[in-house]
């Protein structure tokens, strides 16, 4: 696939902790095409955020370290860039928004100041130009009285509005990629829907690619073209959004989909949940990391960790079991 905007290959990230080295990301590979929205799904601690932070060199180091892999962005490896080089990618070509809008804006700086910074830094605008542009950006993300509100501080904005500000900030330099790290998780449902609508609209208008990290499959269905499901620092299934919902093939994906509450269900029994806890990996696993929680588990699962294999066009799964038949693949 030559037309990949971002091509991640074999990314591994580890954290040194007092208990030992935690293997957070264990060889993740995926690509992002131009104009595409990729949903990355998985429960907390599966390595979704760490993967994205690693790509942008934002892993706190120490204790974190990217130990292997490459992240090609327009032909250049982001992981090999110096601090100075990657600084001009961050915010300029790849924008990022975070989970909690309450804590991701600086409380002692005005919204205007925080919006103007990347404009002046990456585009070289004067203070005055940046102010004008910041006001435009605020109206673009649907904040009324944008000009006056530039002088306000984050605590004068509601949660939803702050996330709008974060989006405006991430998009201020017209990046080619927007990485959204659970941007709707901390918001109530109505605001979630508004933010998703906003991102969809901006995607049409600005034509950027998006990586949308979430643990909410409903959100993914609404926004993504393609989905990667992560577990224990691995991508365990990857497919187009329709294919994934129609033919979920990894036991974990099946479990996730099974845990969704359904409106069309007649009987309202207890919500399904996957038993057990996601693993914290102190060494690179030699077995399938999902094996302890898997109801299809076979002998082979304890001996070898399955790699991602194509099962049909653009649908890849890392599992020894064919969950349709219950037999070995």
């Amino acid at each position, binding site marked *: 696939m030559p037309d990949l905007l971002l091509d991640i290959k074999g990314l591994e990230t580890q954290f040194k902790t007092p208990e030992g080295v935690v293997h957070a990301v264990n060889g993740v590979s995926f690509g992002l095409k131009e104009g595409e929205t990729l949903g990355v799904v998985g429960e907390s601690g599966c390595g979704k955020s760490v993967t994205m*932070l690693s790509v*942008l060199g*934002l892993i*706190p180091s*120490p204790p974190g370290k990217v130990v292997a892999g490459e992240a090609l962005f327009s032909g250049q490896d982001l992981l090999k860039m110096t*601090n100075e080089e990657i*600084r*001009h*990618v*961050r*915010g*300029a070509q790849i*924008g*990022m928004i*975070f*989970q*909690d809008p309450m*804590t*991701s*804006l*600086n*409380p*002692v*700086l*005005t919204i205007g100041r925080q919006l103007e*910074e*990347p404009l002046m*830094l*990456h585009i070289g605008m004067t203070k005055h130009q940046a102010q004008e542009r910041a006001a435009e950006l605020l109206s673009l993300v649907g904040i009324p009285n944008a000009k006056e509100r530039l002088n306000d*501080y984050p*605590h*004068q904005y509601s949660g939803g509005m702050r996330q709008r500000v*974060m989006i405006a*900030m*991430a998009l201020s330099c017209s990046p080619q990629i927007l990485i959204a790290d659970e941007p709707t998780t901390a918001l109530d449902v109505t605001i979630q829907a508004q933010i998703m609508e906003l991102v969809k609209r901006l995607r049409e208008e600005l034509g950027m690619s998006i990586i949308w990290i979430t643990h909410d499959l409903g959100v993914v269905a609404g926004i993504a073209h393609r989905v990667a499901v992560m577990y224990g620092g691995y991508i365990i299934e990857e497919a187009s959004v329709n294919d994934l919902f129609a033919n979920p093939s990894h036991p974990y994906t099946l479990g996730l989909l099974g845990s969704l509450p359904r409106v069309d269900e007649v009987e309202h029994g207890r919500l399904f949940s996957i038993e057990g806890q996601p693993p914290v990996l102190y060494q690179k696993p030699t077995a399938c990391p999902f094996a302890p929680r898997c109801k299809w588990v076979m002998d082979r699962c304890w001996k070898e960790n399955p790699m991602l294999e194509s099962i049909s066009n653009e649908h890849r799964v890392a599992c020894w079991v064919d969950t349709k038949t219950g037999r070995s693949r």
Partner: protein
Amino acid sequence: MLTYIIRRLMLVPFLLFGVTILIFGMLQFLDPVERASLYVRGDPKANQIDAAIRKYCLDCPIHIQYFNWLVGKVDSTTGEREGGILFGNFGWSKTGSQPVADLIARRFPNTLDLTLWAVAPVILVGIWLGVQAAVHHNGVIDQAARVFSIIGTSFPTFVFGLLMLMFFYANLGWFPPGRLTDEFSRVVGSDEFIRYTTLLTIDSLLNGRFDIFLDALRHMFLPILTLSYISWATFLRVTRSSMLETLRQEYVTTARAKGLSENDVIYKHAQPNAMLPVVTLAGFQIVGLLGGVIITETVFDYPGIGSAAATASAQLDVITVLGFALFNGLILIVANLVVDILYAFVDPRVRLS
């Protein structure tokens, strides 16, 4: 912002009332004869004491005494007001052989002078060290700063002060104790030397005597060094932990994700937030300095308010000690007000709520 300041100002009278009640309460532990020296100047004779007790009603019910203590009494023959702390009459200092207020007026400028020159090294350097330690968390600078800080915390002031005195004065003869060289003291005492501000360093500059200015600084060097080293430990610790906490915040990651340089991230985004607890600490530190640093002033024979307080306490001069306590209370209230207002400037959440 204005309402915030007004609200804070409205608290001041209550605080002042509280301070006077406390000090007045402590005065009640003295018997009327001892309390009479609030009003009698010099070495009192027996009949003066009786007269004072009668005049200020020192054996009356407490609220009448409190009122007299606050406003004093106007002498019917001379028309002069005697006593009354509201009018600055804090009583007679036995150890100072002068009214307590005069003693404060004479000693406080020296303390103020010391504070003025100590603030920058004590606070700014301490903060700078703390920020460096946090930025290089667990690195060499951080480890060194922590060792340095532990030594500073555990070093008693008088031991450190004496060591400094031994090295820089006894061995090297660079920085003498005291306030001024004798020759300059005479100049300062003479009429040619005009006391514009009563602060020696400022006045010597205003009088065009750069030599006196340098001499004054030379005498203040060791006290400042001692104060600095002991307080750096505190500032370093508070700034370091506050900065580490701030650097973990998500908005710092946001700032990095925007592509800001590490310097901008640290000094423009993180530090202003990390300074909030440090502002409070700095306020208390300045109050501490202004109230007189007893051990440091005593070790270096520096004629500030601290050494006067030490002398007074050693000789059980309760009136002087309580006078100082009252004065200290005033400083604390004013400083607290200033810190609160500064806080509002640093933190928009305080200013705008």
